[in-house]
């Protein structure tokens, strides 16, 4: 397609003084024959922006380079919808970090402009992928407190909701409790679970369709176009939905509790069994011991804290006082975790006269039909022994329902194993028709959480949001809040999908990967490596992309050895051309060149910060941003080596358990790919260390100059790339 390019150079902020502006414009005008080249002393001013707009319209420019400051600033003024724009950063990454009026700095600026122009030449503004028959309905799986909340909140915002519950009635865990912990201020009094009232509210809402006694048979498709089959007592109903909320909750942990006498002494019961007694109105005990962290916070059992048991036990001491005013409570605990405003609830429980003993349990025994609990006593020193106990209640923790699906997922492909695991787990939950497995991937301990700090609703399956105690251990009030937030994410996803845009973290991105399938060799790397399970496979191993599941990180593009995957504005060829556009001096000029492929989420801002702090580093570098290091295609390394670059530095995010990669696996996959390059380089007699990967976070900006300079030093030691000049 015909393309008219433009080049706009800002000479403000010292760019015009530090660099030879005329020579920069000459790169665009002469070398690249860009028809529209303009310089301005203050391009981000109203006048500068007007100049760009006028030229775009008058000349029909459909792609241009702005060579000025970082794209992290002035994004609001340099906004030109529908036109493909690249920002070449001559300020933070050139003049602020390199010597002014210097040959090397000038060469750097010219190369960065060449790269920008190559990018514009190779790409175009993307048109969105909009699916057909898009649905804005939200499917909620699990009809307990979290699920009911999510369905109701979505419906109240005007979105249809489909609520699927496997039991005969809605309510989930609420059906099993006598009272709940307080849900609102002043957080001091247990509340009625009000199951009937909650169900009535759902039934009264015409936006909500409820399937009880029903499970998900399977779910195919992607956001905006999920096709769910719901099995209600053998009757299969199809529903097309736009987004899914997983709210299947958790189950009490009742295994491995024999160390506390559970199963041995009939009067050692679980938290839930106490609720059943309370519901029946009869506790039948005068002296009750509550044992916290029963089977939790224990390396051999559940290593985590279930976050709700402390407040649940506080509630039960209050209930005990209500139902049996003469009864005494003894609470054996490690820490009372009545976090935040639940402190008031702790106080309310203390006011019942409950005795709190801090220390680990050392023994539970029976004598004359009564129980004896012994423990350490950290507060008073020594040991505690409480005798004549009628009932021991174990605050046994919670296990997320998704935990049970791990065995099924692990047994994928092994029919017998899968059947056995399914038997064990009772059922699959979502049964997604995804190449990467039927369930939401778990992060740790069976909780399908992903990024749990800044973006608690980030998910590894686009459009599917977990909430409540299946996502993370939490109390009921938190589950309500979590479900309300998940409902927002679900309606956001269907709206964004309707516009063909990406959800977090590349929110609003309209580009999506396209596959030149005639050249596909069915190697399956793209389908295996996509961090979001977006790509399915046909029987022959051909990829079947689902653009609405895609998060636009480009990991598939990096994985593909045949280079058949491209975005309209980001492709293997584009980056390759950018690499090749750099002018690499001859060996005798003693000007080595280093290519930096930098993750645009953390490494690029860190490079900018080095600039803002005016930290100097070696000017042999040529910086090229990538969406995620996961999009690294090894051909770029080959391209740079054959072009004569002396080294390649890859800057990506931290991976591993505490990963910081915004696409979860991107930087890790890049490192794995790189290990293969190293072997090749060694075989070719090139030092494998010429390609170095570093994990950089945004705060490493002060270290970056040292990292770059050290790399340059090492490269000098290796001597020039022997392929230079070929």
């Amino acid at each position: 397609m015909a393309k008219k390019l433009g080049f706009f150079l800002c000479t403000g902020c010292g760019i015009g003084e530090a660099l030879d502006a005329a020579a920069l414009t000459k790169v665009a005008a002469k070398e690249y024959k860009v028809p529209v080249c303009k310089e301005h002393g203050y391009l981000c001013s109203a006048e500068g922006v007007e100049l760009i707009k006028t030229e775009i319209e008058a000349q029909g420019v459909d792609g241009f380079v702005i060579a000025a400051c970082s794209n992290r600033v002035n994004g609001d003024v340099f906004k030109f919808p529908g036109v493909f724009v690249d920002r070449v950063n001559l300020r933070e990454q050139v003049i602020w970090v390199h010597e002014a009026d210097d040959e090397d700095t000038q060469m750097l600026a010219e190369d960065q402009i060449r790269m920008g122009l190559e990018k514009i030449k190779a790409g175009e503004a993307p048109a969105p992928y909009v699916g057909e028959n898009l649905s804005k309905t939200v499917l909620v799986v699990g009809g307990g407190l979290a699920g009911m909340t999510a369905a109701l909140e979505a419906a109240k915002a005007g979105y249809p909701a489909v609520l699927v519950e496997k039991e005969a009635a809605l309510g989930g865990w609420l059906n099993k409790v006598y009272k709940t912990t307080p849900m609102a201020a002043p957080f001091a009094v247990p509340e009625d679970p009000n199951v009937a009232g909650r169900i009535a509210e759902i039934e009264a809402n015409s936006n909500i369709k409820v399937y009880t006694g029903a499970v998900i048979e399977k779910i195919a498709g992607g956001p905006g176009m999920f096709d769910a089959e719901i099995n209600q007592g053998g009757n299969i109903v199809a529903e097309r939905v736009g987004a899914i909320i997983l709210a299947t909750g958790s189950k009490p942990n009742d295994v491995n509790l024999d160390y506390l006498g559970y199963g041995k002494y009939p009067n050692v019961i679980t938290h839930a069994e106490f609720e059943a007694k309370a519901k029946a109105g009869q506790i039948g005990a005068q002296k009750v011991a509550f044992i916290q962290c029963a089977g939790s916070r224990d390396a051999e059992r559940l290593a985590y804290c279930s976050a709700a048991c402390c407040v649940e036990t506080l509630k039960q001491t209050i209930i005990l006082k209500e139902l049996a005013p003469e009864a005494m409570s003894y609470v054996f605990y490690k820490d009372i975790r009545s976090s935040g405003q639940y402190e008031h609830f702790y106080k309310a429980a203390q006011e019942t006269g409950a005795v709190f003993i801090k220390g680990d349990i050392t023994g539970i025994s029976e004598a004359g039909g009564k129980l004896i609990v012994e423990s350490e006593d950290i507060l008073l020193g020594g040991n505690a022994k409480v005798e004549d106990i009628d009932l021991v209640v174990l605050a046994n923790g919670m296990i997320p329902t998704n935990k049970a699906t791990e065995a099924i997922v692990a047994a994928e492909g092994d029919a017998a194993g899968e059947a056995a695991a399914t038997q064990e787990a009772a059922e699959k939950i979502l049964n997604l028709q995804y190449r990467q497995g039927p369930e939401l991937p778990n992060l740790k301990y069976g909780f399908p959480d992903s990024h749990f700090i800044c973006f608690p609703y980030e998910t590894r399956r686009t459009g599917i949001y977990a909430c409540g105690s299946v996502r993370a251990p939490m109390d009921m009030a938190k589950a309500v809040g979590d479900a309300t937030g998940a409902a927002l994410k679900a309606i956001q996803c269907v709206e964004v999908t309707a516009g063909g845009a990406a959800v977090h973290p590349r929110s609003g991105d309209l580009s999506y990967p396209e596959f030149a399938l005639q050249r596909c060799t069915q190697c399956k790397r793209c389908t295996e490596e996509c961090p979001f399970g977006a790509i399915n496979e046909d029987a022959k191993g051909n990829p079947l992309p689902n653009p609405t599941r895609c998060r636009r990180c480009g990991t598939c593009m990096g994985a593909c050895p045949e280079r058949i995957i491209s975005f309209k504005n980001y492709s293997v060829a584009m980056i390759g051309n950018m690499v090749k556009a750099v002018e690499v001096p001859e060996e005798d000029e003693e000007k080595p060149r280093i290519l930096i492929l930098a993750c645009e989420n953390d490494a690029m801002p860190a490079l900018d910060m080095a600039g803002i702090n005016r930290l100097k580093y070696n000017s042999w570098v040529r910086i090229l941003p990538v969406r995620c290091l996961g999009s690294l295609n090894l051909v770029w390394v080959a391209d740079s080596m054959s072009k004569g670059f002396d080294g390649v530095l890859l800057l990506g995010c931290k991976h591993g358990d505490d990963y910081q990669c915004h696409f979860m696996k991107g930087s890790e996959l890049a490192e794995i790919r790189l290990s293969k390059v190293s072997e090749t380089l060694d075989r070719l007699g090139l030092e494998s260390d010429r390609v170095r990967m570093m994990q950089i976070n945004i705060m490493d900006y002060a270290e970056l100059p040292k990292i770059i300079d050290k790399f340059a030093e090492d490269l000098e030691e290796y001597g020039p790339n022997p392929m230079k000049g070929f």
Partner: protein
Amino acid sequence: MANKSILVVGGGISGITAAVEAAEVGYEVFLVEKNAYLGGKVSQINEYFPKLCPPNCGLEINFQRIRKNSKIRVLTLAEVEGISGQEGNFDVTVKLNPRYTTDGCTGCGKCAEVCPVERADAFNFGLNKTKAAYLPQPFAFPMKYVIDNTACTGASCGKCAEVCEVKAVDLGMTAKTMNLNVGAVIWATGWDSYPVEKLANYGSGTVTNAISNIMMERLASLTGPTSGKIVRPSDNKEPQNIAFVQCAGSRDESHQKACSSVCCMATLKHISYVKKQYPDAKVTIYYMDIRAMGKHEDFYNKIKEYDITMIKGKPSEIKEDAETKDVIVLAENQITQEITELKYDLVVLATGMAPATAAAQVPAAVGYDVDGFVLSGSVPGIYAAGCVAKPGDVASSVQGATAAVIKAIQSTVRG
């Protein structure tokens, strides 16, 4: 017909989240922040628990989301002065305080270079100085300079205006008022550290080397007053014997009755800061309960691998050794039940979260709970999110802010 736009007040992590989440559904959003930059308290934090990753990383993603979304209008140095009307139709008055630089500022920094006067750097709790023309913090968004009117000597100097080649300095700028009409309001003005000055038995802020937990964040941060080196304020000495005092002014009948829910994890994280710099430093924690909820237990276990002395109980008194400036902590020995006096180089007080509305209330008839937190939805159409609604960590504030958005959307649908 209800107005579909949403006003978000407070540009910390909760307000930023509410703004981007609402805008990404398709709603027009006004984000009002009183500081000159977005990010609020989290931008002052060195690392998040439990990943020990930098808050600027997540903020960067959120700033990108703001930059790319034309539906969000960010107003910094702005305060909401009045809200009238009802759900679906609120009239809001916003005061825009002068920045003394225009939107034309390119962030080049020449004004700060020539500025002859200094001011205490509020971002670092006054532990260092900036010029009167300054960038509010190194990661400031928007990346635009501000002039501190209280330190600036005005037009008689005018060096900044002279040097600014894009004429973005306007020393004559005055406050302006702006009127907005919105369908719903999300109040997310966050929290303030419970003032050490109120803790009489802990020296009311006069013990130089007893610092607050948020100050510890600045001391440990690369962008802080010491470039990240943890030293004690009185003499810049490297502390070798440090105590953390939990629940300082929290879970306390005379101060804040509630628990702030984050201080335990924050302290465990601070121990990692200290141990990273001073592996041999002695660390003691005075605590009531360690509240490492859920999977945070893993982090607690990791920190416990360091050799830490854990003392259950609250110190009765904290005072200063006048000569050495060491900090003396009086507490009960659990075994002997005697009062012990232990000396530390540095004490970190885990002061809790007081809702920001304790200092500046919502200019509408909203309700407050027993702890002073805003009752979300107590006026239909006005919702609270983040730590002004309840004390919480980043994840729960983000979750709460996301939840507040759907409530706000429902108001615009209903109203």
